[in-house]
């Protein structure tokens, strides 16, 4: 599914990723944890091709294709989805309109017919219910006036509608109370399948109680410094990142 080899990337003049390697097979859930400034969010942005995030070395393949050769929207159409940590507002553009364009852009890339308004509405309503958002959210402007928790649920709704191959969840748990966390986790779990893979970026072990990862990786100073199974997250929870010593300090700086 996804192969990252020796990835180096910088933002402006600062090198953030310093030789990150990771392989994800279809159906797997990988959690990425690490101290602030380790490069967790950067990884999501680099993979999805955000402007200003420059790859200086390494390779990334998604489904056998050279991901780094593709434009941002092409990567999305290849099935890469990023759930944003801080989703931005687009005033006046309704969620419905935005998602319909988006779903149909994906369908077009797959050589499928666009959905009619009625077909789309049906799917959108289901997805809305699944993340416990009232249906009038479809009519509201994208993220316009949404609370933090609503924004996160809205991201998961988009993920459900877009049916991506690889989902990157960038701190989808931050700022959520326990009920909202459960809703987000349920939404994610409902989408787990043998074909779909997840990268769950989180600061806290808490989310992983709800979304059980197959692997946990610790990212520090732009590299994966330790990998293990779900128990590694518990260890981190107990010990913190102090054991990383100088590396974590440096990354924080």
């Amino acid at each position: 599914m996804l192969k990252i080899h020796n990835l180096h990337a910088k933002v402006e003049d600062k090198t953030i990723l310093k030789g990150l390697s990771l392989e994800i097979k279809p159906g797997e859930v990988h959690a990425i944890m690490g101290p602030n400034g380790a490069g967790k969010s950067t990884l999501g942005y680099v993979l999805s091709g955000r402007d200003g995030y420059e790859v200086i070395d390494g390779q990334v393949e998604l489904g056998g294709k050279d991901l780094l050769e593709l434009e941002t929207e092409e990567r999305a159409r290849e099935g890469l989805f990023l759930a944003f940590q801080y989703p931005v507002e687009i005033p006046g553009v309704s969620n419905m309109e935005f998602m319909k364009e988006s779903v149909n852009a994906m369908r077009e890339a797959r050589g499928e017919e666009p959905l009619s308004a009625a077909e789309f509405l049906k799917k959108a309503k289901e997805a809305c219910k699944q993340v416990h958002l009232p249906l009038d959210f479809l009519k509201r402007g994208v993220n316009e006036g949404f609370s933090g928790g609503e924004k996160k649920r809205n991201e998961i709704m988009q993920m459900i509608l877009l049916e991506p191959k690889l989902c990157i969840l960038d701190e989808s748990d931050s700022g959520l109370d326990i009920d909202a966390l459960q809703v987000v986790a349920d939404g994610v779990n409902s989408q787990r399948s043998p074909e779909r893979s997840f990268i769950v970026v989180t600061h806290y072990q808490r989310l992983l109680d709800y979304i059980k990862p197959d692997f946990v990786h610790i990212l520090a100073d732009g590299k994966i410094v330790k990998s293990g199974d779900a128990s590694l997250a518990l260890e981190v929870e107990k010990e913190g990142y102090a054991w990383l010593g100088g590396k974590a300090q440096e990354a924080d700086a």
Partner: protein
Amino acid sequence: MSEQIEQALSRKYEAGFVSDIESETFAAGLDEEVIRKISAMKNEPQWLLEWRLKAFESWQKMEEPEWAHLHYAKIDYQAISYYSAPKSMKDKPKSLDEVDPELLRTYEKLGIPLYEQQMLAGVAVDAVFDSVSVVTTFREKLEEAGVIFCPISEAVHRFPDLVKKYLGTVVPRSDNYFAALNSAVFTDGSFVYIPKGVRSPMELSTYFRINEQNTGQFERTLIIADEGSYVSYLEGCTAPQRDENQLHAAVVELVALDNAKIKYSTVQNWYPGDENGKGGIYNFVTKRGICHTNAHISWTQVETGSAITWKYPSCILKGDNSVGEFYSVALARGKQQADTGTKMIHLGKNTKSTIISKGISAGDANNAYRGLVQMGPNADGARNFTQCDSLLIGDQCGAHTFPYIESRNPSAIVEHEATTSKVSDEQLFLCQQRGLNAEKAVSMIVNGFCKEVFKELPMEFAVEAGKLLEISLEGSVG
């Protein structure tokens, strides 16, 4: 990022073709003789010739206004031809079959096939092609309802009393420099009269198109909605691509008598000039309406074209309880300059006005909103709400807001809100991450920004406005 946006915005001007049609054009220059010739060509009555000559006299004494936030080389009014008519129009066509097929193809290229419109759209089109009204469709059906919709040159002969009674009553012939020029040399335009209590059975629509080189287009439109009547009117404008600047100085006068409502929508797509600011239309337009008791005038404009836009569709709220509205989207990109807005003159009691202005600037463009809200001493309980939003795309463009508020009545309430925002990298990235290309993303964000105005446009024209901004309108949500 800004590069992507630039690309998205630097689309070609699609209406920039020239039609090969034989025309009769006056030599460049303006003097009394030219005005007499225009009047004679149109076989006008003496009173109108005199009216023109008086306007010309005032114009000669006036100075071109310089207060607008616009920069352009002085216009040489003697280098412009003031009359151009397709030759085949000299004997006016009785039906579409008699219209020059080349002319009809021009309209088709513009996406307004007259045949199709006749059959499907239910829109009556009075197409103005370099000064002379070419063909008026649906006239019969309208006349059945008592609605008069014809070229103003024809109305001068068929309805002289109406024209004489109202012409120049809302925009006096010496109102301003460009209005005076128009009054002196106007060649054609539309005339509309809706009788008492009649609701026009269809939207009325006029397409203006400038074809000849070095001709100004000076059309004059007069709409009279008699007591308790209703009409919705749309003008769409395009012009071919030329290296020279072309002058367009139009006048539109609306008269809404007691309890009448006029909705006037404009989609303006004149040639904006090339990326270096060469060529393009100079659009100096005076539009004004007067509202009598309980009357309602609503201006909606989508301005995407022209090198220079100088335009302030206004309402004089003379009658008690009358309502004026102004909804505007002005997009300026490249080297375009726009100075546009409105005037709401509250004279009557409990008069209400709403101003929603959306200015979008991209490239090196400058976009200014200029608005006057005036509360007269008798305007007890009058209210105005103004919302003025600017959207910047890129970092080389400018947005300017010049609101003027004058209140001479302590019971009047005036509200003004203004915002300035940018199409952000984050918004663009979100759209692209969801599979949309940059062009689609920008147009979607711009569309969202303009939504409050677009929803005021008649449905069939909202689509056109959307197309102009490379956007698709929202699917209907249950």
